[in-house]
């Protein structure tokens, strides 16, 4: 079976049996979702890349335990969110010791897909998302960026759906204030 044609279950069982091509295929397939999650949570920095790598490494280690109760995408997103939250906690601790952490910003790296003004807009939006408290950022990343439904978001975060909805509403209001210049909103 060609790797590209294999479905989720086949990929997982092949990876369990030590098929490296299958694991590579999993990384390739789910990388965009994991990237959106960690970059959304941590900002566009090298630490986010490290957390992205760690997400797949943790998944590899837990391959035997993965029962398939949730989809692979949801499972990986959950790992990515949990690792990002740990990273944010570490950052908070570090912040009290070092005012400005040695985080390496990747914003300066040229992005051929979004040149010029588009990139500035993206940067502004990313900054606005980063300004949100983690509890709001989590729901924004899962619902608005990754496109999970409210129910799925609630499951991933282990929260009631009502809490997700109210956090989304508050996050929306906060974002609106930060993004006013981009939306041409009048006060």
């Amino acid at each position, binding site marked *: 079976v060609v790797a590209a044609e294999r479905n989720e279950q086949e990929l997982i069982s092949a990876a369990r049996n030590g098929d490296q091509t299958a694991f590579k295929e999993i*990384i390739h397939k789910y*990388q965009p979702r994991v990237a959106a999650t960690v970059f959304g949570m941590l900002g566009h920095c090298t630490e986010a890349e490290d957390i992205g790598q760690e997400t797949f490494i943790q998944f590899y280690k837990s391959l035997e335990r993965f029962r398939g109760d949730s989809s692979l995408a949801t499972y990986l997103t959950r790992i990515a969110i949990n690792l990002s939250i740990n990273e944010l906690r570490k950052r908070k601790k570090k912040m009290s010791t070092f005012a400005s952490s040695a985080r390496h910003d990747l914003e300066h790296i040229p992005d051929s897909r979004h040149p010029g003004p588009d990139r500035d*807009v993206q940067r502004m939006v990313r900054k606005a998302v980063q300004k949100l408290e983690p509890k709001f950022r989590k729901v924004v990343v899962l619902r608005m960026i990754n496109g999970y439904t409210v129910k799925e978001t609630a499951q991933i975060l282990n929260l009631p759906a009502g809490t997700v909805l109210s956090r989304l509403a508050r996050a*929306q209001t906060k974002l609106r204030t930060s993004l006013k210049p981009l939306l041409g*909103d009048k006060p």
Partner: protein
Amino acid sequence: MNKTNRSKNKKISRLLIRSLDQELKKKDQNTLAEALKKSPELQREKNDLDAQRQLVAGSAARNFRPGFTQRVLAGVMTKERKTNGLEKFYLNLKLIFRPVAVIGAVLLLALILFNLGAGDPLNSDEMYYASENTVEDILDVSLF
């Protein structure tokens, strides 16, 4: 603007925000649709919210730097190498002794249950029985 109008507007705004994440009830859908038709301001608010959602959705980078897969595989190898040796030995030991521990626990439980069911119940008189013999009585016993 009077109090009733203000609370109505608040309700409509809430419905508008909720409509982005949830399917509204038929009645609420109609209320919102009617309000949107009547109020250009509300329509503008809806457009802004939609635009904001699009901006946020499009803002996230969805790719890591080139060579990501190789870096992950290298990370896996490193972790595997670390788990080799002593850690692997302990892991195997744990795996070997797991069935022994389970069987032992089951046997212990069975033994306790058996004793509870079949054994004589303990009698408090027997438990706290003390000999009435004094030290002198005991010492008086002729051994020869």
